[in-house]
């Protein structure tokens, strides 16, 4: 009987692997397989962002199902990828075995994937309202960084070191590629859980922030239509000049974060230069392709040993705190702007300052439209949303530059 069972197990090593690990890990694996199904379902139903959640869910469930004893090491592993290779020889060997290894080694370990997503985001970004009303856009984006600032000391007293705390705090900037890039720079060992927590929360924003808005902003103010404000026409030349000058200045100030700045502004310049072949490539190929592989590879990196790490629970709490505080800060900024403009500015524009372009702008528009069908604030909300990307990148750059030099 025992030998039959052994033979059966040798035919199906995935099932055998459950009996070769301790029970806690086996349960975590089963839960992760189910989590993958669930994320995939939520993506399919469009409850969470399908572009990321479908590939991520597929990756999480299948990588945790497909574990076997690796013939080359004799240890449990998968045929997907090995994130722990270090020496050049190990890299060469890994390229022959793991099918996702080239994607991981060439685009994740150096942050290229985040830059590719940023090129795509830049190429679909409309800078018109931001340049037409830069003061309002940027001043609304600054308070919306509250979570990025306050989460840092909170994470530190929860037991994370300064570099890890800064990576977690950047979740408050509500920009997935930025979180990925910053955590790769500051806390490489934690980049998978931090980025996955960030992306899951960013997908929930569309459903979560409307509750915060309903609690924090009076109904009367939510329906301000902003008809009195007009968006001036902005020429492509102005947008290109802004992108190249601002990009160069930011690269000069923060060379360590220059890959992010150059990617974003390159995308914007491609769009505004109206080079259709480049626009097609950056929008359809680069953005779609990098989003697919970002979601899928991140999912494939989420193994049971990451989830059973006690730090994971703290990360989930801190991710929530970061985005909650940024939302509160954004709405406070919006309410102050509304008061200072004698009720002309809809306070919901403040929540759009929490970056996460264009989700937060859509949230602001949806909540205003629910109260007043004549309120069409989407174009106005895009300004603070773009400003949010810029301010988040600036704060991330400050953290990346300054945290490694500090001691607490």
């Amino acid at each position, binding site marked *: 009987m025992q030998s039959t069972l052994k033979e059966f197990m040798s035919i199906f090593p995935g099932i055998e692997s459950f009996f070769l690990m301790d029970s806690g890990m086996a349960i975590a694996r089963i839960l992760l397989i189910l989590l993958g199904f669930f994320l995939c379902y939520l993506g399919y139903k469009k409850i969470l962002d399908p572009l990321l959640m479908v590939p991520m869910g597929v990756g999480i469930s299948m990588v945790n199902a497909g574990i076997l004893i690796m013939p080359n090491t004799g240890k449990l592993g998968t045929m997907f990828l090995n994130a722990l290779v270090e020496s050049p020889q190990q890299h060469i060997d890994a390229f022959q075995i793991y099918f996702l290894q080239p994607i991981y080694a060439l685009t994740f370990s150096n942050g290229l994937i985040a830059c590719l997503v940023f090129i795509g985001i830049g190429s679909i970004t409309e800078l018109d309202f931001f*340049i037409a009303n*830069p*003061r309002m856009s*940027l001043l609304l*984006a*600054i308070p919306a*960084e509250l979570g990025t*600032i*306050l989460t*840092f*000391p909170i994470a*530190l*007293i929860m037991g994370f070191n*300064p570099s890890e*705390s800064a990576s977690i*705090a950047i979740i408050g900037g509500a920009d997935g590629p930025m979180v990925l890039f910053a955590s790769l720079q500051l806390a490489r060992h934690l980049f998978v859980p931090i980025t996955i927590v960030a992306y899951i929360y960013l997908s929930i924003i569309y459903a979560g922030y409307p509750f915060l808005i309903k609690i924090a902003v009076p109904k009367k103010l939510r329906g301000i239509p902003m008809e009195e404000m007009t968006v001036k026409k902005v*020429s492509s*030349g*102005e947008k290109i*000049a*802004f992108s190249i*000058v*601002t990009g160069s*200045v*930011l690269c000069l*100030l923060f060379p360590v974060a220059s890959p992010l700045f150059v990617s974003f502004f390159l995308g914007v310049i491609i769009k505004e230069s109206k080079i259709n072949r480049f626009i097609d490539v950056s929008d359809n190929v680069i953005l779609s392709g990098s989003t697919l592989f970002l979601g899928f590879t991140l999912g494939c990196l989420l193994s049971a040993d990451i989830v059973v790490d006690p730090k994971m629970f703290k990360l989930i709490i801190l991710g929530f705190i970061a985005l909650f505080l940024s939302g509160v800060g954004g709405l406070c900024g919006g309410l102050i702007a509304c008061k200072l403009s004698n009720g002309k500015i809809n306070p919901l524009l403040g929540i759009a300052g929490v970056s996460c372009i264009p989700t937060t702008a859509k949230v602001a528009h949806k909540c205003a439209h629910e109260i007043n069908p004549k309120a069409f604030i989407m174009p106005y909300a895009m300004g603070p949303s773009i*400003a949010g990307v*810029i*301010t988040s990148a*600036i*704060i991330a750059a*400050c*953290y990346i530059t*300054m945290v490694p030099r*500090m001691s*607490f």
Partner: protein
Amino acid sequence: MEKFWGSLKFAFNIYIIATFITLLVLGIVNIIKKFTEKDS
């Protein structure tokens, strides 16, 4: 607790620096707008 206040102070310093750089970006936008207005 000292660690908390020290790190909070550091975080607020970053906030202030980021605000100044944001204002620098605002200045760049305004300068570019002035130049392009002259051109048109």
